[in-house]
């Protein structure tokens, strides 16, 4: 058993710069064996950079790292592995056609064990932390949470005592999150040191023993979880007191503007992304869409926007079917549809152009004649900078050089300026800091009060429940339910997210 009094990892004064950006500025971090440390911070606060240095992907410019009391230099992932540090990234690194036990064996130093022995070992380890896993299941057949479990087993199999998880719950349902936390707790009981990166406060409170808070690359504080609460953590994270309440004005008007009937959409690979979805979008309200990532949300909004063809079904806009029409035709029909896609720089904006070029993306064709007229776009860009407090050196600076929050303000701002009747937003606060997130919520509420039908595809259930009027839940491409956001409980929605009870225990 590892000593519990000394630190598993002790970082002192870690500094890392990228060009002129100081990603980590003299950061201290300690974690003991048998302890779960949460690393809390907004996007861009340097959490992932710090963890990448522990796992050998980056090398710090200065500062010292001690593992189990000894000063070390970790210059490659192999070094980290030897030191007993295992990292689980947001994107899993499994070989699709390998079975669970093959995936666990691959890349492990030493002689290859016979499959039978390997299988037994995997079973043994998984049972030791209270897990049931089929060692012969292939990675491509696994659900996201099973894949994550395999990643964890990989770390345990190699006897690594230090586990780092980078936002592990982002891809999990609430039930799966609970299960993951159980696993982490039993690993803690076995004496592992665990660092979990997250920006979700309730998870920090639920799982961790201590919390280290980073803000804008700087070390802020480390607190005992038991002695803190959400409000204090937010204050440490953002740097000032902030109201966590999201406003929810009452809906206005509420007429059905889009009626989706039996819509089915296929992915390019032929599988069904959406299956017989039927629902209504109403003016003057925010329709939240909940579901685990990849349940068909992306295809749903792209289909409404005319970007991907429907297999069957109809999207009725005042009795007119929009299915099969191109985005240009939809605009010509007089449908003012605003769409904020998930991939902001790859779809919503032209990354290498400035704000001016991006403002006219959808309207460049409106004036007659062969030439573009950048003058109105420039005025619009300047007005938007003023109104949404966008930080950019100039309206001609390529948007890819702007920060995530500002990029989103440009995109959302442009869509709002087009005075839409329907505004579809896919993960509009993903990757944004708290401030920018609240700006986005305010803008959406403002649109709702103007009578715009807002569709909000979100990943954070708490936000969805506070912001939306109604919540539609999707699971495997099917609409499993539409609930009233004011009365529904989190458990109701969580159940619908996995298909409405049947598979909830799975």
């Amino acid at each position, binding site marked *: 058993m590892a000593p519990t009094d000394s630190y598993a990892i002790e970082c002192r004064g870690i500094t890392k710069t*990228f*060009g*002129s*950006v100081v990603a980590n500025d003299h950061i201290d971090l300690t974690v003991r064996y048998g302890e779960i440390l949460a690393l809390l911070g907004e996007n861009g606060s340097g959490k992932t950079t710090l963890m990448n240095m522990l796992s050998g992907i980056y*090398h710090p410019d200065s500062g010292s790292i001690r593992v189990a009391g*000894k*000063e*070390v*230099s*970790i*210059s*490659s992932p*192999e*070094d980290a592995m030897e030191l007993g540090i295992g990292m689980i990234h947001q994107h899993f690194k499994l070989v699709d056609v390998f079975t669970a036990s093959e995936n666990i064996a691959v890349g492990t130093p030493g002689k290859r064990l016979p499959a039978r022995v390997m299988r037994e070992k995997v079973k043994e380890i998984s049972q030791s932390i209270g897990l049931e896993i089929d060692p012969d299941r292939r990675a491509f057949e696994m659900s996201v949470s099973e894949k994550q479990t395999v990643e964890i087993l990989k770390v345990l199999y190699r006897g690594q005592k230090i586990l780092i998880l980078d936002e592990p719950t982002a891809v999990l349902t609430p039930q799966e999150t609970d299960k993951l936390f159980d696993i982490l707790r039993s690993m803690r009981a076995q004496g592992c040191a665990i660092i979990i990166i997250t920006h979700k406060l309730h998870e920090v409170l639920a799982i961790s023993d201590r919390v280290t808070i980073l803000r804008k690359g700087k070390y802020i504080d480390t607190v005992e979880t038991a002695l803190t609460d959400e409000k204090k953590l937010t204050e440490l994270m953002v740097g000032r007191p902030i109201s966590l309440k999201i406003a929810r004005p009452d809906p206005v008007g509420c007429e059905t503007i889009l009626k989706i009937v039996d819509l089915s959409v296929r992915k390019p690979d032929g599988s069904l992304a959406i299956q017989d979805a039927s629902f209504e979008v109403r003016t003057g309200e925010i329709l939240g869409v909940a579901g685990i990532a990849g349940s068909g949300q992306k295809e749903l909004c792209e289909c409404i*926007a005319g*970007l991907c063809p429907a297999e069957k079904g109809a999207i009725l806009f005042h009795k007119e079917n929009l299915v099969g029409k*191109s*985005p*240009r035709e939809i*605009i010509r029909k007089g449908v003012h549809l605003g*769409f904020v*896609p998930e*991939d902001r720089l*790859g*779809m*919503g*904006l*032209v*990354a*290498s*152009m400035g704000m001016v*070029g991006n403002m*006219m*993306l*959808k309207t*460049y*064709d409106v004036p007659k004649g*062969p*030439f*573009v007229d950048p003058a109105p776009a420039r005025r619009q860009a300047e007005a938007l900078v003023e109104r949404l407090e966008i930080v950019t050196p100039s309206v001609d600076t390529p948007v890819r*050089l702007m920060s995530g929050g500002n990029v989103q303000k440009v995109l959302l701002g442009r869509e709002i300026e087009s005075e839409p009747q329907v505004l579809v937003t896919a993960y509009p606060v993903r990757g944004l800091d708290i401030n920018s997130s609240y700006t986005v919520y305010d803008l959406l509420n403002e649109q709702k009060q103007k009578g715009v039908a807002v569709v909000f595809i979100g990943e954070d259930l708490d936000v969805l429940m506070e912001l939306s009027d109604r919540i539609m839940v999707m699971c495997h491409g099917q609409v499993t339910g539409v609930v009233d956001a004011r009365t529904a409980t989190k458990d109701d929605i969580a159940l619908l997210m996995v298909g409405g009870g049947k598979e909830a225990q799975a």
Partner: protein
Amino acid sequence: MIRIVKIKEKNSRQTFAIHLAAFLLALCAGGLFILMLGFNPLEIYATIISGAFRSKMAIQATIKIMIPLLIAALGVMLSFKMRFWNIGGEGQIIMGAVFATYFALFHADWPSFILFPVMFIAGLLGGGLWALIPAFFKVKFGTNETLFTLMLNYIALYLVSWLQEGPWRDPSANGFPKIASFGKSAVLPKVFGVQIGWIVALVLVAVLFVYLRYTKQGYEISVVGESQATATYAGMNVQKIVLRTMFLSGAIAGICGMIQATGSDRTLSTGVAGGVGFTAIIVAWLAQLNPISSLVIAFLFSVLEKGSSVIQSTYGLSTDCADVLQGIILFFVLGCEFFIRYKFVRDHKGGGKKC
């Protein structure tokens, strides 16, 4: 241990300084090469410059080299802006020349105010249609445009071989497989002692500059080049834009072929493109896909080429040495792009094991 680290984007002045430094380093490296051959590099460089400018005739010859290079560079630039890897400039030049040659050979009796425009349009169509073939297969079936355009070069080349050995063979050449020289009426006039193509090239530079920067179609090309998803999102018809842009790209190359055949060569031969379609790619990239800069780059390339032919006659150095010099310059200037985005850093703590 040395590692590569990404750095923040440099501004245009720093970028220019790096390019300049790369060019000077290339001259030094080239100088070493010349030194190795036993010549004085300064003398050789001076001869290259004077060779290109020493007389009115030399200057005219330099410009003559520059015309096809510049026009072809403008052509490929258009497709590169759209991230369509058109390396078929060579073939498009040849097809432009073939189409124009048809009228030069068989309708030489037409008055020149009709014949020239017809040849011009024929050249344009020849190159444009040739470029449309890979574009069509790209948008319909997703074929690889790089391979497709490259292969079409050879088809165009051997088409000319066939024409000069078969249907278009000059009967008065005593069985030698060549196409007849064009009649006087089908040869482009000269302005200031150089064929009129240089005016066409300058006009095209201006047109393309305006087209790319100020027109809706130019805007569409930039958006499609950046991301097809964004273009679709904006309601653009990506297929149409790809087809149209490739046609125009090929059409400009076709004009280049027509001008080369009827202005400089006065006949059609397999050497009508002579590698210009490939060099044009380099010119376009070095000019960072800017029409105005490509004017400068094409000029510099022509000076090097003309100058090195003088080197050959004065010092007996093979023109292949000029190619080596060209290669060295390219290596440095293209290689320096790396230093605009990355830098090397040394690990202060080497090894990786516990210290």
